[in-house]
């Protein structure tokens, strides 16, 4: 298992990217999707997921929809218009970050 701390600063970007691909998702679904996509390498804890989701919602990047599913209520999150724009910005930032890290950890790459 990788160092979870390294992923901490990228949680919002991960959530936004997932919602960009999946239209609307609920909390548990997000944790399972991340686990599945990273083959168990990254496990988002509930304690980290919900404050991040609520912050994105408060910032107007996510919209919520509450629906009755089976015998209980389910809260779905989806991107707002500004959320879609912010996702593109965050992904660009992430690409830049990865490029810089690549140059730092792989000197051959930076000499080219």
């Amino acid at each position: 298992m990788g160092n979870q701390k390294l992923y901490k600063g990228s949680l919002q970007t991960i959530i936004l990217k997932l919602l960009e691909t999946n239209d609307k998702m609920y909390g548990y679904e997000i944790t399972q999707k991340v686990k599945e996509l990273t083959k168990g390498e990254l496990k988002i804890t509930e304690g980290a997921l919900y404050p991040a989701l609520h912050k994105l919602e408060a910032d107007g990047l996510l919209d919520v929809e509450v629906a009755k599913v089976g015998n209980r209520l389910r809260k779905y999150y989806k991107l707002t218009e500004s959320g879609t724009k912010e996702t593109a910005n965050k992904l660009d930032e992430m690409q830049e970050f990865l490029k810089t890290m690549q140059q730092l950890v792989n000197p051959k790459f930076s000499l080219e």
Partner: protein
Amino acid sequence: MEITTQQLHEIENYLAKIKFDFVDLNAEILDHITSGIESLLDKDYSFENAFALVKLRWETHFKDTSSFFFGLMYSDSKIVVKKAVKMFKPFYFLYLTAYILPMIIFTNISIVFPKNTIDFLNGFLNSISAVFFCYLIYIILKVIKAKVKTTYRFILKTQYLGVIFLILPLLMGNYFNDDGSLIPFLISFQSGGFAVTYICHHFYKKHLEAIKKYKIS
């Protein structure tokens, strides 16, 4: 495998027992816990074992905790406090600025007002303070009376003491020194009081919105 209504009640009772009854979080956390149990039921766990395992994972998020932003005397479940901190942080800095900035300005720059305007200005400042004070008391009473718990109500509870910032200038009644300059600490208190009232107004609105959203659904 979907859990039965009776099993769902068991989970609801557990949440009620640990006093996790925040309407803006309850449905979401209940769904998360239930989904976790259902995935274990699919792996042939019994409901009792699955519930015990999921409870163990959630225990840490329900642990009573406090935050520097609200003070040690206010505590609740970790997941509630974490959400509250994320919502409150920008307002905390607004509140600090509203309190500290007038203190710095009026301590360092002496603005002297003509004696014939002092009575009018005192009356004006006292009137504004009285209006803000009444509105703040109105919010406090409404929130206490409603009894419905939301994360925003938790934040509001931590702000009640801010009423002191409005009471003190009102009791003093006079914001000016004999030479006609403003008394910095009273202006700071009043400005802090205005900030607290604005913060309470904002979170009271959020509190009402949350009740409407999740009670109707």
